[in-house]
Structures are given as structure tokens and as C-alpha cells.
């Protein structure tokens, strides 16, 4: 801004056109007021003048439509400071996280009621942890099972909500093979998981007879096969991938011609020929 640079050189000020903005615009808080009225703040800072002096000069610039006379466009007293006063610096960062307080807080209320409510609060905090409504996050398996954990388990009552008052979709569903929709309460989920593990164990034994390194792959194949069957059979439109924990391990062999115990990963190809170097390779 030519005017401001000139101002640095000499105190006398000439131009007026840039300061038209002084006349319009609403009143703002003090820091932003300065920023708005002072287009290049660096000029102000570098010139080492404080605000009122600058304002005097600006206003002198403003004047009445280009005459360059020194006159205020607004009542400087209304802002709250006089001419020539030193103002605090502009704060350019957010307020501190833990500001100093000049006044310490008043002590807390004490009395019978307050003491009793305090005891109540602390007791309620402990009680809610033992209620059946407190759902704990399933913890990850620790590497070493601690002995004391067995004896620190809190016994919790089971809570069954009143299904008549809840929407039907709230009830846990029981899965049957080929998806017959049943809305019974899933009391037997524990049983099915037990039978699941029994099935898995049985299958592992079977597969051990067939061969060693192959059982894990087959198990995975079996599980995936039965999961897919469940997905098809279930009439629910949306995702059942979410409900992985409740699928049944039905023993459905896939109907194809491949022998399940056959596994070839291609390592044998070309590996044997290294032993007999006498034979000619073609």
C-alpha cells in the first residue's frame, strides 16, 4: 500500500481512497477491528507505532472525501481508550489449556445429606458392575492363564428381557440347516456349540486316519462349505457374514469327483530329478 509505505518515510499522510472501508462495516471486537482496519499488519508492526497513533494517521488519511484533513470517522471514546494510550498486544494464539485462576474455588458443601449421597454414589458405581446389564467386552486370550483369574470371576445373574415388549427382530434367532425360519429363544446355543466342538473333534480323528498334513485344509474347506449352505438356505436378505458364530457344522460332503484326501501343491514337480544327475534331461 503506497500510502502506508509513504507513512513510514514521513509522518505526513496523503492518500485517502484505501480507507473508504473505515466508514462502513459493523463494529467488531478489538483485535479483529485492528486486523480489518489495518490491511498490512506488518506495516504497523514494523513501523513500531502503537494503534492510536496509527489511527490518527489513518483517520487523517480518511478525512472528508479526499481532503486529507485529520478527523475521526467514529468516536474514539466509544471504543474505550483515549488517544496516545498504550494498548495490550494482539494475541495470535488460542487461550492456554490450563489458565491461571486469580480466584480459588469455594469449598464444597458438606453435611449429612451430601455425605450420604457421596456414599450412595460410590456404592452404586460398584453395584452396577455386578448387574446383568453390564456387558463386558470379551477379552483377548492371555498367553498364560492366571490362577487367580478363576477365583476372581464375579457371579452374574442371567437377565431375560420381556420379549412381548420388544420388537420381534430383537430376539436371537436359532439357525437350522436349509433355513427354516424359527423365532424361538436360543436356549440351545450352548448345546449346539458343544455339539459343534464334538463334531470337530470327531472329524479331526477321522481325518487323522487319512493323512497328516491335510486335515487343516480340509477342515477349512468343510467349514466354508457348510457356511455357504447356510447362507443360501437362510431367508434373511442381508448379511449373515456377521453371524459367523452360530453356524452349524453339518457334514455335507461336496458332490464332486475329486478325492478329498488328495492334495498336490506342485512341489514334487521337478524336485526329484535333481537326485539323479546321470539321466539326460530333455
Amino acid at each position, binding site marked *: 500500500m503506497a500510502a502506508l509505505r509513504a507513512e513510514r518515510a514521513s509522518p505526513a499522510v496523503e492518500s485517502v481512497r484505501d480507507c473508504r472501508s473505515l466508514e462502513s462495516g459493523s463494529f467488531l471486537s478489538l483485535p479483529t477491528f485492528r486486523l480489518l482496519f489495518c490491511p498490512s499488519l506488518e506495516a504497523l508492526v514494523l513501523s513500531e507505532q502503537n494503534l492510536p497513533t496509527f489511527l490518527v494517521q489513518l483517520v487523517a488519511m480518511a478525512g472528508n472525501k479526499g481532503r486529507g484533513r485529520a478527523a475521526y470517522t467514529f468516536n474514539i471514546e466509544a471504543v474505550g481508550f483515549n488517544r496516545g494510550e498504550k494498548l495490550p498486544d494482539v494475541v495470535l494464539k488460542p487461550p492456554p489449556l490450563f489458565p491461571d485462576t486469580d480466584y480459588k474455588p469455594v469449598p464444597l458443601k458438606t453435611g449429612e445429606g451430601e455425605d450420604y449421597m457421596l456414599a450412595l454414589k460410590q456404592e452404586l458405581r460398584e*453395584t452396577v458392575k455386578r448387574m446383568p446389564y453390564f456387558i463386558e467386552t470379551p477379552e483377548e486370550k492371555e498367553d498364560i492363564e492366571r490362577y487367580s483369574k478363576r477365583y476372581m470371576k464375579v457371579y452374574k445373574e442371567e437377565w431375560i428381557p420381556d420379549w*412381548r*415388549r420388544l420388537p420381534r427382530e430383537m430376539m436371537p434367532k436359532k439357525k437350522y440347516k436349509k433355513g427354516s425360519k424359527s423365532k424361538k429363544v436360543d436356549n440351545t446355543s450352548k448345546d449346539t456349540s458343544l455339539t459343534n466342538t464334538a463334531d470337530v473333534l470327531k472329524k479331526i480323528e477321522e481325518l487323522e486316519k487319512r493323512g497328516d498334513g491335510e486335515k487343516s485344509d480340509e477342515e477349512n474347506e468343510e467349514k466354508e462349505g457348510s457356511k455357504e449352505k447356510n447362507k443360501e438356505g437362510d431367508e434373511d436378505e442381508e448379511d449373515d457374514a456377521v453371524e459367523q458364530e452360530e453356524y452349524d457344522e453339518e457334514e455335507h460332503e461336496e458332490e464332486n469327483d475329486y478325492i478329498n484326501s488328495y492334495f498336490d501343491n506342485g512341489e514334487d514337480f521337478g524336485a526329484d530329478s535333481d537326485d539323479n544327475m546321470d539321466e539326460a534331461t530333455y
Partner: protein
Amino acid sequence: MTQAEIKLCSLLLQEHFGEIVEKIGVHLIRTGSQPIRVIVHDTRTSLDQVKKALCVLIQHNLVIYQVHRRGMVEYEAQCSRVLRMLRYPRYIYTAKTLYNDTGELIVEELLLNGKMTMSALVKKVADRLTETMEDGKTMDYAEVSCTFVRLADTHFVQRCPLVHATENSDPGPPPPAPTLVINEKDMFLVPKLSLIDDTLALAGIAQWIELWLQMKVLPVQTPVRAHAWVAGQVPGTGHARGKGKRRRSSEDDATGEPKAKRPKHTTDNKEPIPDDGIYWQANLDRFHQHFRDQAIVSAVANRMDQTSSEIVRTMLRMSEVTTPSSAPFTQPLSSNEIFRSLPVGYNISKQVLDQYLTLLADDPLEFVGKSGDSGGGMYIINLHKALGSLATASLESVVQERFGSRCARIFRLVLQKKHLEQKQVEDFAMIPAKEAKDMLYKMLSENFISLQEIPKTPDHAPSRTFYLYTVNILSAARMLLHRCYKSIANLIERRQFETKENKRLLEKSQRVEAIIASMQATGAEAAQLQEIEEMITAPERQQLETLKHNVNKLDASEIQVDETIFLLESYIESTMKRQ
């Protein structure tokens, strides 16, 4: 919902129900009404867990469901109801002051369980009371249900909406969710039950009366907590610490032998429950009405004297049944009626009562107003104005404690004069200009005071505009309420941090106490007990002391900030209803 409210809700849900329920609850509060599949997808939790969490939240009246078109059920969380969980200790304590231990336990069980049937509730409370009584004595079911009926009559407990029973047989599939309806008249109707106590057979009325008298006459039949609290008042033990030790050891005992107690509770009689499907919940609005009345009465007592506060209390009690809780002022009461309804112990003459009433009506705070002259003078209580005065008083005290008494003087001045210019503030407050402007700007930056522009010309030129300082009470109250939510969230976080820091030490001390308790039970010498107690060294004891002291202080602060929250919320609610 503001970020501060959401943060506070998240902390409260986590403390009460665990992390899974907290995740679902906060998600619902943030995003509004959603169907279950969307919740599963957005929160990336399994369907099973989402269902469990929603069941828990619905049980506690924190989430409601609605059936939308195409049969979709949407769930919506009630943020304000979640914030009420802070106030549970106050509700329970109020029930204790009004209806003794039985009432206290009834309200506590209702709040902890969300909703319960009357029979289940009465049984549970009676069993709890029996546990704490001396051997051989049992708590009578009839007395507990008597207290319950009184609670229902005074509207402190209310019925939950019932499942709408369809008269015609539905040809098609049943609706995806039941519609719940409640009839206004039936909300406090207690079902007729004949509760059979399986440990004590009720022979006749005479036996019942005898038991009642026994319980009234014999001293100290109080539940464990009250017992510990009373015992903790013994001087020299420092009641906070004594309470803690006692409570913890009793709790350890409780957890140590749940299996022994379990068989007794599972002997349920398999006969059909007569009040099946009729659930009850605590009526929080009625408690709030009670707190509001308490606040008004204590304000009058502070401002004037005990007698005038008694008069105001009488007027409020008479208006409980006639006036709805959200009305701006009570129904007019004549001076003669008030005179007749004064408590029996008060023997003030009619003229004195009239003088007091006139004094109350002329008071600039305008708690009591005169609405007519018939019947010796008709008087009303201005509930809305009273709440406004209480909220304003909170604001004033906050300004005083934060910025000093001179700032408070300016604040009160601007409140009184409504609009003031900078110069006028300096003159009226008699404070030098520089300091006055500094204080005004400080309050302005914290939004206690706001600026009002009054332009003289259409172009809003700054030189030709008045700038007046004013206090907008509603917006200042909202700002203060927001700060209160933030401070409670900070307090809870700090308390959790302190507890986590000292977790190892706390666990150690719990184990030591359990060992001592079990050794005492089996009979041990003092020397052995001494040895066990020395497992906790003196510096560790000191650390535990400090921790206990800090946690108590933080808890007490939470309770007190909640009182301010109640006042501000009541005022804002009352103002919004009038607009």
C-alpha cells in the same frame, strides 16, 4: 446434541453398562433414529451384541423404538434421559428422606433395573431388608407394598406404557413391534396383589400389626449401607475412610459367598404372576418438581426467615395436586385456606400470616404474587419467575467467583438496568474507566455479557451507533449449562485416571482386607492380624489415603455441579415452554 453432552453421555454409559452398550448408545445419540442393520454396519459390531445392547438400553428407558412405514423399526436414543443418570443418588436420597429405608430401596431397585413389575420389586426389596435385619426377623411383604402404594399415590413411581392388546384376532403376521399405550388415568393405578411370603405365613391381621410395632420400636434396623454410614460417623476414624473400608469388606463378603445365597433365591414359585406385563418405572418429573419446590423454599428461607419459608412450603404442597408441574404459576390460594393448611406445630395468628403474605408479595424477587382480594387475599407462586431468579443467582455467583466482586457489581448493575453504555457503566458502578472496560471486555469474551447495537442511521456507521451492554439471561444460562457438562466430563475423566494410576495398590489393599476378613471369621489372634495388616506399608497407606480423599472430592464435586445443572435446565425448559 453438543459435543460436551455426547462426551458426558459416553462416560456415563461406559460406567454403568460397559463399552459395547456405550458404543451403540453414543452412535445412536450422534446420528439420531436408525434401524438395526444400519447400526450394525456403522459401528462394526456383531448383530448379536447390538441386540443385547439395545435390549439393555430399552429396558432402562434410554432408547425408544418406532415402527415406520414398510415395517421398519427405528431406534432413537434419549440424550437427556442418559444425563439423568448423574442424578440417581439424589433421587434415592430424596426417597429416603420422604419414605425411609423401604422407599429408598424401592426407588434404588427401580432405577437400577429400569422397569420392574410390582411383585418382583416388592419381593426383591423385602429380601434385601431381611438380609440386614437381625437373625430371626424378616421383612414383611405387606409393609413394602404399603410403601409402594404410597409412592404410587404421590406419583413418584408410574406405570410404563402397556403392550396394546389387540381384540380382534390378527389374520396376517403380527406387527414387527408392539405399540405401547398408556392411559392417563391408569398411570398410577396399583394392581391388586396378594403377595405370599414363602418364608413367613401371614396368619392374621393381629400378627401383622405386632410385627409392625416391633419394627417401629426396635432400634437400628437399617440396611448395610446406612449402617456403615452411621458407624462411620464415629469420631476419630475419619468418616470417609471408615465408610470405605467397611463397605469394601462387606462387599467382599457378598462376592465371596454368592453361591451360598444363590439357591435361596431360585426357589421361585411357578404359579402365574397376577400383575404380569404391568411394569413400573420411577417418575423423574415428579422428583424434579420436588427438587424445584425445595430450591424455592430454601431461597425464601435464605432471603427472609423460617416462617415465611414454611408458608411458601405450605402453599406449594397445596398446589401439588391442582397445578401441573410445567405451569408458570400456581392456582390462586386464599389466605384463609393457607391458614387452615399450615402445619400443626405452627401457631401464628391470622394477622401475622397476612403480614407475612403481604411482605412476600411485595418482595422485588416476586416469588409470591397477589392475584385478588377475595377470601382474605388470593396469592399465587410465580414458578417461572422463581426459576428465573434462581438461574440468575447462579450466574451472578459464577461471575463473582471467577472474576471478583467488582465484576459481579458491574454484572448485577447491567442486569438491573437492562441496557447500559460504556460510560454509564463506569458512572453507576463507581469504578475507574480503565478497570471497568477491562472487566467488561473480560465478561464479554466469556459471553456472560453481550453487546446490543442500536443504529442511528440506516447505514450502521460505527460513529453513529449506540453500543449497549446487556445480559441475555437465556443465552448466558445455556452457555453456563454447556460449561457444566464439560466440567462434569472433566471430573469423571480425572477420577478414572486417578483410579487407574493406583489400580495395583487398590487391588492389593482389597486382597489384604479379604484375607483379614476371612481370618477374623475363622478366628485368629491379634498378632496374626497385625502381621497381615503390615503387608501394606506406611507410605502405601498414605497413598491410599490421598487417593480416597481425592476421589471423594471429585465425586462430591460431580454431585454439586449436577445441582447447578438441574436449576439451569429447569429454567431453560420453563422458558422454552412459554415461547
